[in-house]
Every structure is written in C-alpha cells, then in structure tokens.
C-alpha cells in the first residue's frame, strides 16, 4: 500500500537502501527493515537498563522506555476489546492513565528476568504493511538454560504517517496485551458487561495499583 511509502517510513527505506549499497549487497528492500531497525534501537537502550544492578534503577529505566516507545493509548483500547465502544468519555479519561500505570508494572516485572542479559533482533514477520512482529533472543544464551530456546517478540505498529510504536510484547508465543484483553473482558463480562462492567474494571485496576 502506498501509505507506508509516506513520511518517516520512506526515510527509513532510504536509510536501509543506503546501508545496503554501502555493504555492496543487492538486498531487496524488505518492508520490515524499518520495524527491525526500530526494535534494534530500542534493544540498545533496553540492554543498558538490563545491565543496571539495582531493581529501582531498572524499573525506572523500563518505565522511561515504555513511555517513549509503547503506544499505551492504543494498547489500552485494545485491552478493552469490543467493550471500548461502550466506554463513556469519562470512563476512558479515568481508565487510560490507570492502564498506563498498570501495563508499565507488567512490563517491569516481565522484563526483570532479563536483567544482566542482553537481547538482539533475529528476524521479523509482516502481518500487514502496518503491523509487524520483530523477534529477538538472548545473546549467548547457555544451552539448556531458561534463555536457550526463548524467543522474545515485539509487536510493531506503523501509523499512517509512518511513526512506529510498540503495541505488544511476548515470549515464546505468549503475548501480554492479548492476556490483558482476555482478562479485562472477563472482568467486564462477569460484572454485568457494558458500563457497569467497565466501572468494575476501573475499580479493580485502582485497587491493584493501590489507589
């Protein structure tokens, strides 16, 4: 589609083409080069955070990365599933910041086992010209260790203007936002669905965050 040829995306393509010409290899321009590059840049920052020896510093570092790269409003809407259409403006105004806080704590605890390790991009899959899966793995994982066969996935969404963001992360086929949507839908449905259910979800998020 022509959308992805616009704006920043074409800059990435130019950059990719430039790199390809320097290496003198006629690699065909793959649509996901920009997505892989985007994740590789994030991993450089993330590996710095994983190297921090103390938990508070790592958590602060991950929060910064999440704020910078994760499109939290998009993920928050996804997590509501089709109930997003039933949420009032007032409910969304209350829910979105709560979700940001909640999802950040999930990223912090999910990424903490990678402390002291570093991740590198291995490959990627295009789901569409706006939606990419970029895979990464732990560098020099010991055979037989918990990291040996582990694939860490990053879901990259490319907006119409070419701006890329992370919308989900997962390990070995298990995704965080998909779990969040499944759980949130369960909470909403089991509290009467609709507006009442969304209120219950907001209440549960608050109590989970200690607010």
């Amino acid at each position, binding site marked *: 589609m022509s959308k992805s040829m616009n704006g920043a995306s074409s800059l990435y393509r130019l950059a990719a083409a430039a790199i390809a010409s320097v290496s003198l290899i006629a690699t065909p321009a793959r649509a996901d080069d920009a997505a892989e590059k985007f994740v590789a840049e994030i991993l450089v920052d993330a590996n710095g955070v994983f190297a921090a020896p103390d938990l508070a510093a790592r958590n602060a570092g991950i929060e910064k990365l999440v704020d910078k790269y994760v499109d939290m409003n998009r993920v928050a809407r996804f997590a509501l599933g089709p109930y997003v259409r039933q949420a009032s403006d007032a409910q969304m105004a209350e829910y979105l910041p709560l979700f940001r806080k909640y999802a950040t704590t999930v990223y912090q*605890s999910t990424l903490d086992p990678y402390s002291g390790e570093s991740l590198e991009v291995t490959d990627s*899959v295009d789901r569409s010209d706006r939606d990419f899966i970029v895979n990464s793995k732990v560098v020099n994982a010991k055979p*037989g260790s918990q990291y040996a066969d582990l694939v860490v996935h990053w879901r990259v969404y490319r907006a119409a203007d070419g701006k890329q963001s992370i919308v989900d992360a997962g390990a070995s*086929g298990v995704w965080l936002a998909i779990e969040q949507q*499944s759980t949130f839908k369960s*909470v909403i449905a089991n509290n009467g669905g609709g507006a009442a259910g969304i209120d219950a*979800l907001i209440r549960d998020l608050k109590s989970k965050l200690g607010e």
Partner: protein
Amino acid sequence: MAYRLGKGILAIGVAAAFLIAGAAAQGVVGDTSPAGETVDPSDIDNAVAAADSGAVSDPWEGFNRSMFSAHLFLDRTLLVPAAKGYRATTPKSGRRGIRRFLANLRAPGVFVNDVLQGEFGRAGETLSRFVVNSTIGAGGFADPAAQIGIPAHGEDFGQTLAVWGIDSGPYLFLPLVGPSTGRDGFGQIVQIGMDPLFYVRTPPADIARYTRAGVGGVSAREQFLDPLAEIESKSLDYYASFRSFYLQARKREIANGKVDYSDLPDIGEFEEFDDLE
C-alpha cells in the same frame, strides 16, 4: 525408603480428595460462582466472544472457576509448601537432574506421539536422546544429548489429536491436574496408556508410579513458583490470566514451536482508533 515415599504420596492424594470435598462443603470453592453463572445475553458479548480470534471457548467457566478455587486451596496448602521445601533442601543442579530424569522417562510416550504425527525426524531425535541420556547421561539425570545438538521437545496425545485436526473443545480446569481442554484432557487419559510402566503390575512398579507422580508434581510446581506468584500478584482475574497464558502457550506447543502470527488479533484496527492517528 522409596516405598515410604510412595505411601506418603498416596496419603497426600487421599488427603487431597478429602480436602476438595471439605472445601466444597464449606463453600470455600464457591466464592466465584456468581461470576461463572453470569451470562450477559446482550449482543455485544456475543460479538466479544466471536471476535476472540482463535480463542478456545469456555462454556464450563462456572465449573472451571470452582475447580480453580479448589486447586488454589490445595496449591497453597500442599503444593507450594512442598515445592518451597523441595527448593530449600535440594540444590539447583539436583533439581535440574530430577527434571531431566522425569523428562527422560516420558521419552517413550513422546516417541509414540512423534510417530503418530508423522514427525519421523523428531521421532528419531526422541529415540536418540533416550538412548544417549539413559546410558551416558546417567539414567537420564544428565542431558548429554542436548550438548551434542539434539534438543529436547515434548509431545502428548492431545497434541497428536490437534495435528489430526481435532478442535480443542472447551477449556477445562481440574484440581491438581491443571489446565487443559476437552481434547487435551482426553489426550491425557490416552497418554497414560503410552507409559511403559503402566503395564508393569507389580508392587514396586506401583510405588514407582506414585512416586514419579508425586515428585513430578512437586518438581513442576517448584519451577513455576516465581512466575505464577508474579502473574497472580499482577492479575485482575487470576483465573482468566491463567487461562489466557495456558491457551497461548499450548497453541505454540502444538505447532512445535513454530508460531503462527496470522491468527493474532489486530491491535489498533478498530474505527475508534482513527482519532489516534
């Protein structure tokens, strides 16, 4: 010594059965029953269910939630203390050895399922691993096969049924057995028959079976002490989170680790998202 351990495990099993009955009688189990029985008939909820791409349905949610509560009760009173005790008394390398030993005992069952799925290359790997690890791997406590480049993989009859095109059926949770689906629960029963020890009907073999079941349960629980505690502490609905994580991981297991990204739900394709761009 092994005999005593076997009896001990048996005693735990009997105690567990009483505890389930007791918990049910005291209403401990029923604390989530309104949740399970609430079926919102509005269109949106049907749409929600339909939109859940590739998701396994959970029509037995009320029953499953009760069983999950019973399981959590047993988990907290028996399994977690046993797993923590095991962690405290057995060094890391010892626990890894026991996991490998138990995995090696499962190899004949894995082999049968590799063959039934037509995965002859993987069947060969399973057979090679079993021979190598049972001999120079000190009866399975070490894993020299992985070091020479034959990595471990699991298979079970539920996965074979999936490969044969049988749908997963409804999600099913049973206390101490854990999460599964209609298909995979049936697969687990058939799987019992793929265990060579099942056909040895002598008292020592009985003890070995009970011991293996008990040690296997504690060993598996020990491995998941931290991740499950973390998931429970973060989750708004532990039952739903557990179900989602299990079903996602199971899908990948059935696909032999090859992730199919095409059936992931879209993130950010609803019309409500347009104002974000």
